[in-house]
């Protein structure tokens, strides 16, 4: 337990980065799993360069349910208040999906009202909870596109919809609410694993054609873009095809939501980091944790902010991302 606490102290106070990741010797002791395709060969210097260091904020998995769930509202309001106090303001705030729980227009309106006071520009991607009630209709109305890229300060940013599911509803004759229910239940086997999908893989292939191998790339996805734990759908089935498209790029960082806890991975040339949730904390699964990943201590259910929070990340000169977790268990309300 002390080892876990020690590792978490470092995680929260130091700027945990690709560069100091291996220095955290406690990680080896707390790794719950040694499985998975993980290599730790990322100390070699990168020649990738960003124009100038900058900050961006992250939030994920709010799961707002409208007025019936005041806890969700309080957590979001706290995040807004803290982000607005940042000086200087981050260049943008990325919201990594599952903004609402049941995918309805009403819940998205409720979400929009809470986040309207945010000073910086908010960018969005979709989670499964935003999508499967009306297959993205309300998402598009409130949050815009799901698949896009842009260049900023020398970094190529990519945002994708990684929560495509095979059609499990038509043959079963499910209602929209039933479809949302199955897709939104973490451990339901009905929906099957997430996919990026052929169409989006084609888009990514075209998008990367204009990106130099030395340009740092930061990708935002809702689901982890690797195989973590299938029974809870911490899993993107065609993630290896994304990895292949990213081969040869010197600096690639994927940041995802969905898992509601801190998990880190490294596959080939790609770093993976998760975001904290603003909704509720998920425990770690019994297997599948990437070797070397830290684990957060279990959250206290008596603390409505326990195990939750958001991030302010720093992109360095080489385009690497220092993930800075604002985890609320550690801060007095």
């Amino acid at each position, binding site marked *: 337990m002390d080892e876990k606490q020690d590792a978490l102290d470092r995680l929260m106070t130091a700027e945990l980065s690709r560069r100091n990741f291996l220095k955290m010797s406690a990680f080896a002791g707390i790794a719950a799993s040694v499985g998975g395709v993980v290599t730790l060969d990322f100390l070699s210097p990168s020649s990738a360069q960003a124009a100038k260091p900058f900050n961006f904020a992250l939030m994920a998995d709010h799961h707002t349910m409208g007025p*019936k769930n005041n806890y*969700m509202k309080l957590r979001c309001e706290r995040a807004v208040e803290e982000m607005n106090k940042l000086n200087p303001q981050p260049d943008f705030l990325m919201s990594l999906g599952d903004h609402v729980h049941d995918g309805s227009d009403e819940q998205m309106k409720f979400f929009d009202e809470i986040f309207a006071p945010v000073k910086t520009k908010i960018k969005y991607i979709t989670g499964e909870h935003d999508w499967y009630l009306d297959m993205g209709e309300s998402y598009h109305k409130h949050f815009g596109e799901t698949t896009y890229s842009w260049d900023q300060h020398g970094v190529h940013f990519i945002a994708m919809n990684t929560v495509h599911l095979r059609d499990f509803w038509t043959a079963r004759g499910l209602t929209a609410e039933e479809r949302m229910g199955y897709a939104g239940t973490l451990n339901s086997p009905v929906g099957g694993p997430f996919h990026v999908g052929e169409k989006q893989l084609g888009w990514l292939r075209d998008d990367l054609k204009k990106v130099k191998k030395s340009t740092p790339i930061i990708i935002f996805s809702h689901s982890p873009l690797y195989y973590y734990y299938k029974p809870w759908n911490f899993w993107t089935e065609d993630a290896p095809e994304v990895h292949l498209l990213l081969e040869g790029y010197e600096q690639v960082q994927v940041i995802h939501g969905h898992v509601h806890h801190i998990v880190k991975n490294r596959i080939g040339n790609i770093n993976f980091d998760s975001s904290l949730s603003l909704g*509720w904390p998920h*425990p770690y699964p019994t297997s599948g944790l990437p070797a070397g990943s830290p684990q957060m201590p*279990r959250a206290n*259910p008596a603390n409505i902010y326990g195990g939750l929070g958001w991030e302010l990340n720093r992109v360095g000169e080489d385009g690497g991302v220092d993930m800075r977790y604002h985890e609320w268990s550690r801060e007095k309300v």
Partner: protein
Amino acid sequence: MNKKITRGRVLFLAVAGAAVILVPMLVNAQRQDDTQTLPGLAHEVQRKHAQSGEILDRESVMKGNRELQVMITLGDQLWHSRDLPMSGNGQACNMCHADGSVTHPETYPKYKPQIGKVATVQEMMGWCISIPNQGKPFALGSKEMNALEAYMNWNNKGQVMEIGTMPQ
């Protein structure tokens, strides 16, 4: 005449052959149906009483298996429920505790600061329903509370009973 006898013998052999093949299959299917259990539950159709060694009646063993499965299945539904009075804010047990994870029923009873006393696992579930889920808890020992406990314990099968400890 001979043809009739031959035909009769063929028919008899066919029926007997079919019976030899089909009857064990049907009996086996019935047994499988009787003993079909959720993963991790006992499969035996015959059981001795733990203390006396008396061989228990097969029907009562089967009934016990069936009733436990019914309770676990009900518990599964309740664990995922967001619409019943047990969830006042749309939060389900399954959201924080998918597959009964990090519930650690093997550590109860134990002192829970938020309850202010040594609490049983059902009292802790009642606290979770009341506070994080802002719902109305079922009575201790009610069918619903027992079903929730059955589902949670089935998911935590194999844990060593460690009353009062901090789970690892």
